């Protein structure tokens, strides 16, 4: 058991913050991964990233006025989602302007809030926490809210799963069959905003799309059916989060000794690594695509 003890530092499973980190991390990783699969499929990764930037402003604003950052992420993310749905910038048109102007302004505000916040409270590390996550310092009182939000987002996306798939196949077919396409899109965008806020708690606001998009993008490269893609993404997200937490805990003994490395570094690196590994696989050739099935029916051109 010496090897095991070397990998899992003594005290890892006995630590209260680690328990909370693992529990919340798992729920958030699964939610983000499943929401992420639909986000990538709907071509809304950009919307996810915009929500993350605006959530950063919310988180830093919450820090400035002294409330839990999660509520800041959530309020600004949901508000931004509603605004985006209203003006439709989550679609391709208008993206450039939105990126340049709105998101820049949001991050500028975040800079101001963080500066003022650290000036007044002289709390060091708050900026880091908001930007890059704080999984070991989740207060136990916010845990129920985090888990409830995650279940709400996950439940929404599961309830909409078939409708979202049909809509991504063809919005016209969905509309012709009575699906309220616009309302479904708005509900999905809200679930996306909640997932971004939750990921921001785990790996920070600016990195939150990594947990959302990374496992999903990897799953889409390896899994074929929608259920399998969601399962693979959830598995990858959870594995990266657990390993990230474990390595961060271990890294307390790494140089510079006594200052653990950030969880978000490990989680994002692991997710990126998994995505890159999928490119090492030889692309599989589909046997049927090459020849047309109708060849035998062709009569001679004359």
């Amino acid at each position, binding site marked *: 058991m010496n090897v095991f003890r070397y990998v899992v530092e003594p005290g890892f499973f006995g630590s209260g913050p680690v328990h909370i980190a693992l529990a919340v991390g798992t729920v958030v990783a699964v939610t983000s991964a499943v929401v992420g*699969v639909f986000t*990538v*499929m709907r*071509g809304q990764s950009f919307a996810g990233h915009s929500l993350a930037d605006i959530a950063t402003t919310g988180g830093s604003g919450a820090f400035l006025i002294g409330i839990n950052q999660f509520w800041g992420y959530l309020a600004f993310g949901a508000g931004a989602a509603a605004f985006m749905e209203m003006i439709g910038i989550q679609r391709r048109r208008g993206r450039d302007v939105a990126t340049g102007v709105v998101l820049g302004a949001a991050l500028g505000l975040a800079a101001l809030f963080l500066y003022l916040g650290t000036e007044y409270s002289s709390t060091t590390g708050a900026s880091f926490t908001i930007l890059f996550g704080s999984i070991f310092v989740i207060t136990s009182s916010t845990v129920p809210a985090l888990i409830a939000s995650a279940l709400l987002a996950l439940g929404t996306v*599961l*309830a*909409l*799963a*078939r*409708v979202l*798939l*049909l809509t*991504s*196949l*063809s*919005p*016209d*077919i*969905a*509309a*012709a*069959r*009575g*699906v309220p396409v616009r309302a479904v899109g708005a509900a999905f965008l809200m679930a996306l905003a909640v997932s971004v806020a939750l990921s921001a708690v785990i790996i920070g606001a600016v990195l939150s799309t990594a947990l959302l998009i990374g496992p999903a993008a990897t*799953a*889409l*490269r390896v*899994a*074929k*059916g*929608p259920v*399998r*893609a969601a399962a693979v993404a959830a598995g990858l997200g959870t594995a990266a989060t657990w390993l990230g937490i474990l390595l961060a805990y271990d890294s307390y003994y790494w140089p510079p000794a006594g200052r653990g490395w950030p969880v978000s570094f490990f989680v994002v690196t692991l997710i990126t690594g998994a995505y890159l590994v999928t490119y090492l696989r030889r692309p599989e050739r*589909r046997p*049927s*695509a090459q020849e*047309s*099935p*109708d*060849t035998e*029916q*062709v009569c001679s051109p004359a």
Partner: protein
Amino acid sequence: MSAELLRLDGVGVRLGGREILRDVSLSIRPGEFTGLIGPNGAGKTTLLRIILGLQPVTRGSVLVDGAPRPPRDASIGYVPQKLGIEPDTPLRVRDVVSLGLDGHKFGIRLPSRARRERVDDMLAAVGARRYADARVGELSGGEQQRVMIAHALIGRPRLLLLDEPLANLDISSEQGIVSVLARLARAEGIAVLLSAHDMNPLMPVMDRIVYVAAGRVAVGRTDEVIQPEVLSRLYGQHVDVIRVHGRVLVVAAPEGVDEAEAAAEDAGVIL
């Protein structure tokens, strides 16, 4: 004669001050194979969208089984011209066909053997069984058309609408799709309304034709509609109908085109 499945009466559509369709009247009976023919931009897609309830009409009425179309009408199946999906979309061919049964429903569903068999049978009927487990985004255009026909038919519609299913297909896929549709229409009594800018691949199977040009339609049997007088009136300029080895070409006459006719051409043919 059996009752009308679909009836359009004096339908007109105006979009942004422009008249897209005017005074369109037509009816479709069960089991009929109707070609919706006309140049690009003539209003074919708009007409299909009206029937699907996606495009409100400015005037006139649309009746399905003698009554206004309900918001969700399972009796009409639809195959759009293009799918909005990327190659990495995790939808296998069988997932797509299965969504034809219940993709509009909320909540999750557990897999069942009966459903799987029904999907397999439908794929076999359109000749797409071999790539049932491939991702639909990776298929060729002709293969995707077959899959979408299976998707539309598995809900047992009585009218199948297809928007330019033959566009961008090679000639063998084109013939394959047409023969699959003709066979299913005959065997199941499904009415087919298929839009195309070239009527020739449909000549062997088409019962009736709806010819759209300059926002107006001419409706009837193929030999009734494809006449120089009928089409010239529709286009608002003189056109010739040329028949070569059983194929038909509709061409504008180069001589004697006066200014009024040229204007009509701008309005109808090039739009």
